[in-house]
């Protein structure tokens, strides 16, 4: 075999595995829900560590020549990447029935096992390659890193051109190419080459005619609306950031929070979906009678105090708010939307402005709002957002999603973009008990304190409909006339005024609640920082303001609320459950359990050969660097998402840069003495701890810069540390396991399991304590590794 053949094969197999992971998450997110996708793929990744266990168990019984294992596992990886999606498609799992149908758990277990297979085989290929070439572990491991980085980029990039089910052809094709590199034309290798060629041909065929179709859970919005009378799909668009579909049906209507008193006509609408979830509607405005509806939406409250000539609409693609601004005589409307496809589908519907009102200048911008407000010099009479907290968000499924739009830092910048007399309007769906809107109020008041307006006591006005709360923020303070105007407007629509500066007591007339929580929250927030903190501390849910370091405005169930809910009667906690959070906990529990069992297996089966006491530093070292890598990666993705402005770009850039740079570091490490591992891990402790303190500030500094500069800054921040992060594994192998295949397998298993367990654990840490703490946790883990390395060398000495 040529010297480069094995690293190339490793790179291709790793690329296939990572592309498979990305595509699987995309497909499960469309077919099921995001949290389910995360859980299933997260647990299946345990296959990585399992290969170490398998290798160790077999090695304990007989001698293994790693080379044929490498060739076979590479070929089988290609076969598994092709066949497993088809088999998984045959298993009908309905996660909504897991609560009461034990059979669903069995099916889920089958899915786990099936999905773990290609990851396990791919990892076995890398492990056997390392075992086959113990003198250059850095090169092999580096090839795996670089391949993974390229696979991540390809897995995301292919979604620009192919739907996810067609894109599934990519991973087996990559692995098949890897298999071809590993085998020779000599007789024993011919069959493997034949199989690899077969997989390659089948992959190409699968890209042309997909072997499986999307099987979307019938409870999701897309199948539901598709079942509407005369429904027809009018548009479809695929990209890495989502699968966008438009469905037209005369029966579909979308008017969040529409007044109970509205008796007028209803316009024709087209439903818009992202990943089969409702993302809003495109609305046709044939005449002014249909557009009259707009003034009966809760989001129209800011127009009650007078014309808003310049309006910034955030998340405009799925909302009615651009039309609302035009209908309320705005002269200029800037419409921001992250999904370009939603702009394409929405913009034409408001182009017929004659039916809506006067001809306004509308500027559609595809991009993130944080980036835009950091860069623009424009100011607005109204900035409007919402409604937030509804739909799937209401089900707590987005509780894990970073959202840099509803943080204190974001509100400070939004308030800064208002003209004199300008208003920031944030509408959110109500929940029982209130959560989203309480956090909005506490967050916006904290933002107001930072910009320190003269009349903070008069800066808030809160209205509530039967289903939504609209928080109006005017830093200059609301006048008595404005309060009267909004009150009159609200009363006519059966909306309540929950708070205004002159309100002496709660005043809910139309939409009754058991307790005046919003009044109490607003009152506490405006009184002082201390009283706001006291309110948040005593509220059953976590409603503390979100920040850029902990950007989870839809996460309310902290540990305190969780323990209280779980202590309640059977089923009572279910409506409050944040399914993303529950899935994260479930992933962690399952991962810890399965990883524990699979790590213990070889130990029980005969670890005496190695000596458990001597294994402790090895397991500690490789486990620590596995956790540290994942923690640093997740923290970096979170903070650089804010810098790069788009989660998909951030994931692509960070994963690719991190993995490729780590691969280079890993390959370079072959030229360094193994003893350097102590210094490298020590240096990482210092760098990551420093990142925890300063990186977010640097991100804020670069936010107004052009994308190219921000991207370059991200690479400068990431690449050097990633090069270092690629070194500890191969250096450690040479320190701990230079002449023992057993120990290589142990190192692999410990690192693999720690990496997989670290993913949900790091996500939980970020959720509860923020990305800064996560960087520090990564630094602490490298410290553990440094100590383990030092102890191992001391033992050797």
């Amino acid at each position, binding site marked *: 075999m040529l010297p480069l053949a094995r690293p190339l094969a490793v790179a291709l197999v790793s690329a296939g595995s990572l592309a498979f992971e990305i595509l699987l998450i995309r497909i499960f997110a469309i077919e099921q829900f995001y949290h389910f996708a995360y859980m299933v793929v997260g647990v299946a990744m345990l296959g990585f560590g399992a290969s170490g266990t398998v290798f160790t168990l077999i090695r304990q019984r007989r001698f293994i020549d790693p080379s044929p294992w490498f060739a076979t596992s590479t070929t089988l990886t290609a076969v598994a990447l092709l066949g497993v999606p088809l088999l998984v498609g045959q298993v009908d799992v309905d996660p909504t029935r897991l609560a009461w149908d034990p059979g669903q758990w069995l099916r889920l277990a089958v899915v786990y096992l099936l999905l773990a297979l290609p990851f396990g085989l791919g990892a076995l290929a890398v492990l056997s390659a390392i075992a086959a070439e113990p003198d250059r572990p850095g090169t092999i491991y580096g090839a795996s890193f670089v391949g993974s980085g390229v696979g991540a980029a390809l897995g995301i990039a292919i979604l620009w051109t192919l739907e996810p089910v067609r894109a599934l052809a990519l991973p087996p094709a990559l692995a098949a190419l890897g298999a071809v590199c590993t085998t020779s034309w000599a007789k024993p290798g011919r069959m493997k080459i034949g199989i690899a060629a077969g997989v390659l041909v089948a992959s190409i065929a699968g890209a042309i005619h997909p072997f499986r179709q999307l099987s979307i859970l019938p409870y999701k919005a897309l199948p539901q609306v598709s079942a509407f009378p005369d429904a027809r799909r009018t548009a479809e668009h695929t990209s890495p950031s989502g699968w966008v579909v438009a469905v037209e049906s005369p029966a579909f209507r979308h008017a969040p929070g529409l007044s109970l008193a509205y008796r007028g006509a209803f316009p024709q609408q087209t439903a818009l979906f992202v990943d089969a979830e409702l993302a809003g509607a495109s609305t046709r405005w044939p005449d002014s009678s249909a557009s009259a509806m707009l003034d009966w939406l809760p989001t129209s409250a800011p127009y009650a105090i007078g014309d808003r000539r310049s309006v910034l609409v955030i998340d405009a693609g799925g909302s009615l708010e651009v039309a609302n601004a035009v209908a309320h005589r705005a002269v200029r409307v800037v419409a921001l939307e992250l999904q370009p496809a939603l702009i394409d589908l929405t913009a034409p519907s408001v182009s017929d402005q004659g039916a809506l009102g006067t001809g306004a200048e509308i500027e559609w911008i595809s991009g993130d709002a944080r980036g835009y407000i950091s860069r623009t010099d424009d100011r607005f009479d109204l900035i409007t957002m919402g409604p937030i907290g509804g739909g799937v968000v209401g089900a707590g499924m987005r509780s894990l999603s970073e959202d840099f739009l509803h943080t204190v830092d974001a509100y400070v910048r939004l308030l800064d973009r208002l003209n004199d007399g300008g208003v920031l309007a944030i509408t959110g769906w109500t929940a029982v008990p209130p959560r989203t809107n309480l956090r909005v109020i506490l967050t916006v008041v904290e933002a107001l304190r930072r910009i320190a307006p003269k009349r903070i006591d008069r800066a808030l006005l809160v209205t509530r409909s*039967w289903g939504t709360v609209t928080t109006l923020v005017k830093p200059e303070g609301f006048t008595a006339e404005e309060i009267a105007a909004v009150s009159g407007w609200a009363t006519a629509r059966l909306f309540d005024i929950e708070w205004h500066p002159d309100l002496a007591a709660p005043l809910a007339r*139309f939409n009754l609640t058991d307790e005046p929580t919003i009044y109490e929250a607003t009152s506490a927030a405006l009184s002082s920082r201390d009283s706001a903190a006291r309110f948040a501390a005593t509220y059953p849910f976590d409603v503390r303001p979100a920040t850029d370091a902990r950007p989870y405005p839809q996460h309310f169930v902290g540990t305190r609320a969780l323990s209280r809910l779980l202590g309640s009667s059977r089923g009572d906690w279910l409506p409050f459950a944040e399914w993303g959070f529950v899935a994260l906990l479930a992933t962690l529990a399952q991962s810890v359990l399965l990883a524990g069992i699979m790590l213990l297996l070889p130990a029980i089966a005969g670890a005496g050969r190695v000596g458990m006491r001597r294994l402790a530093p090895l397991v500690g070292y490789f486990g620590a660097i596995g956790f540290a890598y994942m923690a640093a990666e997740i923290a970096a993705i979170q903070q650089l998402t804010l810098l790069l402005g788009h989660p998909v770009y951030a994931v692509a850039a960070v994963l690719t840069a991190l993995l490729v740079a780590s691969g280079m570091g890993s390959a370079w490490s072959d030229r360094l003495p193994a003893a350097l591992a102590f210094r490298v891990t020590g240096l990482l402790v210092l760098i990551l701890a420093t990142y925890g303190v300063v990186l977010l500030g640097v991100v804020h500094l670069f936010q107004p810069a052009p994308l190219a500069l921000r991207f370059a800054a991200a690479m400068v921040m990431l690449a050097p540390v990633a090069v270092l992060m690629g070194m500890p594994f191969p250096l450690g192998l040479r320190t701990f396991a230079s002449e023992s295949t057993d120990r290589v397998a142990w190192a692999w298993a410990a690192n693999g399991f720690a990496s997989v367990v670290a993913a949900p654990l790091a996500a939980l840490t970020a959720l509860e304590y923020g990305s800064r703490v996560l960087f520090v946790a990564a630094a602490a883990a490298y410290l553990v590794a440094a100590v383990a390395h030092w102890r191992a060398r001391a033992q050797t000495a």
Partner: protein
Amino acid sequence: MRLARSLTFLATLAMVAAVPLPGQAGPDNPTFRDRRQAMVDLIASRGVRDSATLAAMRAVLRHEFVLTEHRRRAYGDHPLPIEHGQTISQPYIVAYMTEILRLRPDMKVLEVGTGSAYQAAVLAALGVDVYTMEIFAPLAESARRRLARLGHRRVTVRHADGHFGWPDEAPFDAVIVTAAAGYIPPALIDQLRPGGRMVIPVGSVYGVQNLILVTKDAQGAVTTRHLIPVRFVPMLEGLR
């Protein structure tokens, strides 16, 4: 602040069901009776106190309203899937919504979203006249047949779009909507008699909704009150 009383996330109500139930040996048997009693006991323990509602829940044979393959689970306190992504809701939610309406015999009730007709049967068992609307023609038809076969004679089923209510039979003492709406249809409020009560899941159509009680006082003034969070299938508009 009070955390809402007994709740359910997966509470969904049927808009679909109504396939023929083959192999019926008879409408009821001791096993189903025991399970039904256990179900009612559980509902009572979770806070439904109205004896008439509990008696109605005890009287209606829920296993006749679910798909054959789910019959043995018919009396579990959870929703069950039926066809086309629709579900029959959790018994507790059926009882809770029924109790909230404060019905008395001979009242007139409008139900939007017939589905398997289980909710309509429970309402009828309270001695009220039920006018139930179903958007899917085959479902409306099978519900009509099922109700007739089981002897629920005070239910009138109509294939129509529930968003416009049933003006010919209005006003109603109570309105119950058993499918999620993105907003509260004005026609349903109009058709509610002064002093009447309407219970409807509203909010975002496809996520968690809030079960809302709409009341109209003697002068016709309308107020709303959030009850509990639920999850319903969407209410379809337009005929199918």
